[in-house]
């Protein structure tokens, strides 16, 4: 499929804002919505994986070393990971 230009001008928007082709939701970077982003302190992390389980966006991944990190392209900054991390390894930091 042809890669869609983004952001489009009004002349480029497809009629009815139709999205052609399947499985392209990942092209929409919902991470742009966030006002805060999570920062991990691996020194405090006990690798329990709760952040991974609770992230409603499914954007927390295990790293090669067994710690965790968010894909900031999709993290909406809800702070649930930081709330659930009981050892306090995640801090929410203001964007910008």
């Amino acid at each position: 499929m042809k890669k869609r230009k983004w952001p489009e001008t009004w002349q480029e928007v497809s009629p009815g804002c139709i999205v052609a082709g399947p499985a392209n939701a990942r092209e929409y970077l919902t991470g742009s919505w966030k006002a805060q982003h999570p920062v991990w302190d691996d020194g405090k992390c006990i690798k329990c994986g709760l952040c991974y389980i609770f992230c409603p966006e499914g954007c927390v991944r295990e790293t090669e070393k067994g710690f965790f990190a968010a894909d900031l392209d999709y993290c909406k900054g809800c702070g649930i990971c930081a709330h659930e991390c009981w050892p306090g390894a995640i801090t929410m930091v203001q964007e910008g």
Partner: protein
Amino acid sequence: MAKRVGMEVAIAASEAVALCNIDMAAVYPITPQSHIAEHLSDIVADGRIDAEFVTVESEHSAISCVAGASATGARVYTATSSQGLMLMHEILPIVSAMRLPVVMGIANRAVSGPLNILNDHTDIMSQRDCGWVVLFVENGQEAVDLTIQSFKIAENKDVMLPTCVNIDGFQLTHMVEPVEFPDQKLVNKFLPPRKPYATLHPDKPVTMGTFAMGDIFPEVMKAKDEALKGAKKVVLDVFAEWKKMFGREYKLVETYKTEDAECVFVTMGSMGETAEVAVNELRKAGVAAGLVKIRLWRPFPFEEFRAAIGKAKLLMVMDRAIVHGGMGGPVSVEIKSALYGEKNPPAVHDYIMGLGGRDVAVDDFEAMAKKSLEAYRKGVEKDYEFYGVRG
């Protein structure tokens, strides 16, 4: 030449739909409806056309259902009026934003409350900004002709917008009028099968009704607005083709005796015929009266309107709806914008009349002209007026 038959206008409108090779219709048959729904279901049940007639549980479902069918590439139709149109409201801007060429007949009626159901234009005016192409008809023949033309306008690749045909409830829908039906073969030629921009098919997946945040929403709105404004050219082309094939001529704004007119009535819908008689009467009494009838309400034909009023010094706008808390009726508000910045614009006198089915007869038009001319000659500014309201 085709035979003229006497037929109730609502029934004639559904007969016109039957000529259009529709695939599907969904209509909710409760009051306020018109015989459009009833007769169309008869046509389908009798096997006269090969189409689905979906009996839905509300008007909200009716419009949602035709929108879904239209997304699959089908040619679809629905009809409603008054409260039914109000219940459809949530979906109307979605249909236009999704660029689905749904065609809808609206038997214009008052909106409750108080509970009324009789004719005025409050229903469509409250849906004015939903991004549909909006046409008004004056008589039964126009209801037939414009219903057929609406499909061609709506489905044009440069338009792809829903289109509604406004037929005054009762005043027109329930009248028996002489109508001439175009030949089916000619209609097939005029209106070939729809060529949808996209369809819902598993072999070619697309997403319709997408989500759009502030980073793209304004671009989508601008594209829709440009498409709606551009629809004017397509309406003109379709009218021209209709004239060529069927002989009857339609204009975006119709004029009657305006060439030398000093004062001009502005109407929409069925009252145009009464106003014509009033113009004749006024002319007999020595008043240079004329009449302008707006056929295309959205997109509003600004240039054509300004050309139509000619050199008139006084416009008497007949509004069958009120913009509560605003500057009168919706038609006059539009006309004042159309005239903004013009050199020596005419005075605009606005009459809110015919609400909730109240009759407006020839002598009412004459009385309004008399009032307006008196004020105009004295140089008095005139605010909008609820014509004929007691007190």
